[in-house]
């Protein structure tokens, strides 16, 4: 088996890795690059725990090959905070208890960030549909939706 050499950018850093052709981007992030913040809940694109942004577009990293990352710009949960400065969504999720077990949290934060980049003033329905691909079994979504809405309001006030 000859491995593929891939050059990409992850959370702003030029990154090179070797992978098998069948490795998913999720496999690469978790097992080759040690970025285990991106989680695997299903491996079939049904739970959203592996959400990352590729060239600014939200995707399931389990549904993309590592090899496809060549030349792309990938953002994962590990790049969401700036130094010790949490992203407002991260801060709000803690404050509003928008997580219980926390396994879905990285994917939901990445997805919510992608929403707020496109739509700074989403309705509750828009938030709910945007996040419909991110399963959470603990919270019933209530506090998650509220946290996203409140973060959006805070960010609008701040800008």
């Amino acid at each position, binding site marked *: 088996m000859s491995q593929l050499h891939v050059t990409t950018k992850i959370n702003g850093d030029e990154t090179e890795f070797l992978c098998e052709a069948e490795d998913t981007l999720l496999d690469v992030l978790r097992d080759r690059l040690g970025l*285990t913040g991106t989680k695997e*809940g299903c491996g079939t694109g049904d739970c959203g725990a592996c959400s990352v942004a590729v060239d600014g577009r939200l995707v399931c990293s389990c549904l993309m090959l590592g090899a496809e990352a060549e030349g792309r710009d990938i953002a994962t949960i590990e790049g969401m905070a700036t130094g010790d400065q949490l992203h407002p969504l991260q801060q709000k999720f803690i404050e509003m*208890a928008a997580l219980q077990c926390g396994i879905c949290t990285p994917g939901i934060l990445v997805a919510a960030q992608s929403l707020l980049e496109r739509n700074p003033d989403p309705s509750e329905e828009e938030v709910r549909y945007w996040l419909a691909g991110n399963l959470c079994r603990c919270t019933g979504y209530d506090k998650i939706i509220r946290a996203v809405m409140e973060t959006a309001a805070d960010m609008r006030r701040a800008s």
Partner: protein
Amino acid sequence: MALDDTKKTRDFKVVGTRPDRPDGIDKVTGRARFGADMVAPGMLTGRILRSPHAHARIVKIDASKAEALSGVKAVVTRADFGEVPEDVADVLDNCMAGDKALYDGHAVAAVAASSPAVARKALKLIEVEYEVLPHVTDVDAAIKPDAPVLHEGRQQETVPEGLSQNVIARSEFGHGDIEAGLKQADRVVERTYRTAATHQGYIEPHACLATMGADGRADLWVCTQGHYMVRNTCAAILGMEQGQLRVTASEIGGGFGGKTVVFLEPVALMLAKKAGRPVKMVMSRSEVLRATGPTSSTSIDVKIGMTKDGKITAGFAELRYQGGAYPGSPVDMGAMSGFAPYDLENVKTVGWDVVTNRPKAAAYRAPGAPMAAFAIESAIDEAAKAFGLDPLEVRLMNGADEGTKASYGPTYPAIGLKATLEAAKSHPHWSAPLGENQGRGVACGFWFNFGGDTCVSLNITPDGTVTVSEGNPDIGGSRASMTMMAAEELGIPYDQVRTIIADTGSLGQNEVTDGSRVTFAVGLATIEAARAAKREMCRRAAMIWGIDDEAVEWEDGAARPAGPNAGKFPPMTLKEIAAIASNTGGPIAGHHEVNAEGAGVSFATHMVDVELDRDTGSTKILRYTVFQDAGKAVHPSYVEGQFQGGAVQGIGWALNEEYIYGEDGILQNAGFLDYRIPVASDLPMIDTVILEIPNPGHPYGVRGVGETSIVPPLAAIANAVSEAAGVRMTQLPMSPPRVLAAVQAKAEG
């Protein structure tokens, strides 16, 4: 020294506030390490080969080709395990099949290999010869005398003759005279209800990393609700001493009861032992659904007698639960809890534990109770509505209170059922208008709540901060609660305390994180450990001041002289005492080990509005309110979270979730695509009302809150859908095809 032990009137400083959880930053930044996030040097990948048959004799397993494959370091089958103690025999058989594969997905062999690709390839090279046997997956079919039999000789003495060997046990609870009670009724509602098996649906698949040395010492990293349980079970299965197996609990990505047993862990240890290398095993989602514990599917007959003014004269239920391939469905819990919210003169429940060719049922949040509540609360609702009575008033009229003899035997102390009903009645939700094709349902629910073995060790650091070590995996914010209770008791700020989950080598035995026990039992032990530390700090202060220990009391985070002869010394703060601990006898700690008894039962009332699309049978949840007694809400945000999460799991159970088996006994929907748990867009906000009726068995009045919230939703939603549809729904899930068929049948008369 005098310790503040008041309950109802206590003025809390930390408890009842909403501080940030201590593991928050780790969890929002991706740093938190869950089951699959650990690595070890030289680690191998472990994988399991699973039965493609629902029921088959395993004639022969030939793994020679797999063993010969380059990169394969170990193959394990049942033959690798010796005789094991009886109490773990079924556990082992479920982890690795013996003579027979008992369900689709049952483990039959495992490999450890140098990469996932090699492991996958190796599994295909293992040749298993099966003799396929007839199977049965339906509970009512499994009871019949001619049903295919899973096990011979497992039937208990409680089962009358003439039933299939699949019927393992019968139990009966209650008091009074049902026939006499039914005679007093103006109306008797008699129906059969059915519920489908549902899965706990935690988002994190089971995962572990096992290491075992040639000296027999082993380490295990695992996502579990109870690493002490994992240690004890694995040690028994592998014939090890418990002290030689150290288990560390990872962060856990949901459990809801499903991670209270072992699946991969003994196999991973055996692979690690044979390979002499660390072995990591992670289940796929389909493995989780095929082979880990769903809850029972059930079939329940209910008979309710009611007078025209709403008095329940008799309540009877016969419950049949299939618990998968081994004895031990949660039918007893259902039979004991179903009528628990009511004060009844005549009540009787009969429970039947049945085995079928399905994965062994694991606990699922208030195991057994939601199905019983669905049946009984539906029948009560139907009887009340037949008389045109208000369903909340009927529940209030018949509701249990302090002094009521519970349907399962004991007499209740102070309980909160009526408080939840009164809160529901006065809530604006109850009086809000409903539109066309909309319905409102209410239902009550009960759960026992547990205590059990618990250890907490609380250490004072030299700089006067505090660490708490406890032995229960934090599944939904319990580290915050423990930190709060320690801070409360010590009279210091929340951020001066840090709580960690210790490994099995660091504390004594701890019961699993289950039965809504953690905030109650670990909280109790934390408070007692803090009190022990306070006593010691008071003693140190007394030494310094040269007065009697008894003349020192602890208040607001400091030792103070108390009483007429104590003298006038300025208070010594915790920090001051800690700084000179070495000079006064050495480090200061408090610890508490207890089998915590005295958990308080808890009750809830749920209220839900639905809208029905009469053309498609689709149900939309419009509004939902949970009213539940928490005893004392330590961190109200996480109490609300438990209420909301339980309600939404109940919504899934009521509307869409189900295990679907084909005629061939194979699970048809082993993925999140067709095992349909609720998504964000399915739901409204879930409103919560926390009632606080203190539990006399806990220093702060805490009751467990985690499980009760899943008990009422099935019935509440069924009552709402039935109202909207104009036809009584008796089978879950109330999926669109089922509701549409009922609506059409009703229309056709």
